[in-house]
């Protein structure tokens, strides 16, 4: 005992004498790097939070005006003259166009996701995966051009329908990928249990696999929705825009329709101060829309994790 302590003590002192310069430098570098990483985190988070803060503080007043929700925009003279003006028609149009996009994208996207995960040996799967990723990587503006060429040109008019289709193109690949991802997590034993009970394959997918993955699928859809709801580029030459409430409900699908992102763009580049204020208001609504969707999807995922544990 005494021998070991007496032999380690001198070695420890020798270590302290020989290595400090080197070790201190390494520790110092470690500290500096931590400082730089914290700095990088602040550099990234602060400007983006500043954007959110500016939008909310500049736009909140416009949003609190009741006419913002009940009136349509009309001509600039209305805003300049202090008469009733608002974005009620824009909110309505956004709901129609986004809802339509969901109706189109959800079944197709989930179907393709089922194909990828439930028929893993299908010969078309590798091609589908590549093309789906290609579609996902394409700028949204190109999907707007596609909807323009496929729907606006033959119809001869800008329309809510074409806007919904354009946004559906944005959502589709995201939904398909997310669905494939969550269905794959479901263990094969669950499918085998269903098959062993004599269930046909399609019932296994619809009645056991999909319900088990329900929360994940919904989350994927919400993420796709949040992404598409903020897109303005594809809407500019499909839904186009409209300063008034449409004359008949059907006109929201067959005629030009206002949407929040596209309207925000045209308000922001307009020369009128009053319209700029409404543009900030549109920013608040759009941001709120996206954030609520995002938070709901987060809560759903958290619930799933808790259930797993």
């Amino acid at each position, binding site marked *: 005992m005494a021998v070991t302590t007496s032999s380690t003590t001198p070695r420890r002192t020798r270590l302290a004498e020989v290595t400090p310069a080197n070790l201190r430098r390494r520790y110092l570098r470690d500290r500096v790097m931590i400082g730089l990483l914290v700095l990088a985190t602040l550099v990234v988070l602060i400007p983006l939070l500043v954007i959110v803060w500016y939008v909310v503080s500049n736009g909140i007043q416009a949003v609190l005006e009741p006419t913002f929700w009940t009136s349509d925009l009309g001509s600039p003279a209305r805003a300049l003259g202090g008469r009733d003006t608002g974005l009620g028609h824009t909110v309505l149009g956004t709901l129609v166009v986004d809802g339509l996009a969901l109706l189109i994208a959800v079944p197709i996207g989930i179907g393709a996701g089922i194909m990828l995960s439930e028929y893993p040996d299908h010969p078309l799967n590798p091609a589908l995966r590549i093309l789906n990723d290609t579609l996902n990587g394409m700028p949204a503006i190109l999907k707007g051009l596609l909807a323009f060429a496929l729907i606006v040109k033959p119809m001869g008019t800008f329309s809510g329908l074409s806007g919904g289709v354009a946004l559906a193109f944005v959502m589709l690949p995201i939904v398909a990928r997310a669905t494939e991802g969550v269905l794959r997590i479901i263990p094969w034993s669950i499918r085998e249990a269903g098959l062993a009970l004599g269930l046909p394959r399609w019932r296994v997918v619809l009645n056991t696999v999909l319900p088990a993955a329900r929360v994940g699928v919904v989350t994927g859809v919400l993420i796709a929705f949040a992404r598409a709801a903020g897109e303005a580029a594809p809407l500019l030459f499909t839904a186009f825009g409209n300063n008034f409430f449409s004359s008949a409900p059907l006109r929201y699908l067959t005629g030009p329709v206002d949407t929040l992102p596209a309207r925000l763009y045209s308000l*922001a580049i307009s020369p009128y101060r009053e319209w700029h204020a409404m543009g900030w208001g549109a920013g608040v609504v759009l941001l709120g829309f996206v954030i609520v969707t995002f938070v709901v999807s987060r809560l759903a995922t958290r619930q799933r994790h808790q259930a797993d544990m």
Partner: protein
Amino acid sequence: MQRSATSAIIRAPTKAIYRRLGDNAFQTVVVGLGITIMLLAVVLAWVLLRDGWEPLRIFGFLGFLTGTTWDPVQNDYGTWPFIVGTLITSIAGLALSFFPALGVAIFTAEYAPRWLASIIDTIVDLLAAIPSVVVGIWGIFVLVPFLQNNVYLPIYFWTFEQAPQLLPILGPPAGYNLVTATIVLALMIVPYTAALARDSIRLVPRSQREAARALGATRWEVMRMAVIPYARGGIVAGAILSFGRAIGETMAVAMLVGNSNTLPFTLFGPAATMPSVIVNEFREAVENLHLASLMTVGFYLFLISLVVNLIAAWMQRRYTVGGRAL
């Protein structure tokens, strides 16, 4: 469900038909939906090529690519200025955002306590969802006036007095310019790069870190020697994907880049990118050839995005250890 299954087994004869018909129908529907997506990707390329065919026929594939004039009045079109604008803003935006993004990723994945990391992760993911137009309106009313008064004008006047030979590079301080567009682009892709880098750092096995620590490495040395080299492929692939995003980023850039169709672009002078010219001119295009040329610009944008995405996918497959994609 169980009961119906049992009774289905008892009624075996009808079951066989029900089963085969049902399975066939279901598979047909599902495969049909899959094929719809595949068709969409192909039709996208085909439509852009079809509607943009006329300029390609007149100016030639390379002629349109390298043509430096974009003049709707003279009906003379070339996409080179926009390709230059897109590449400059995207590359500079990525360069500006890459290291901060990597810093956030390392910080949340390795250093921050769990509660802080989850808060930062949530904020980063949320920021990635901020719509482009919202960033755009902030840029117009806050960022541009700020930069104009505090950066562009002082630098311009200083250069004017001290180094006038640099003026052709700086150009007239317009506020809406390449630099503004680049800064905004960097802001917009930073959460995306950070999230992808974070995911690939999290995939690095524990043993890798423990081995380095056992050798007496400090925390940073663990990162530099064991974690980052392991995650390198995923990080770079993520950066390339972000680059692809930057190329297609439309609204914020269109609102802030100033929109000038003539080369040479200057740092403080207006410029344009491929998406920005499509957004700005598509609704006003009256000439058929003008409209078709914008479609052709879209087709070239498609080609560039395709190449970038394929490279990213290849990188992911090639360098992600253990074959796990992000």
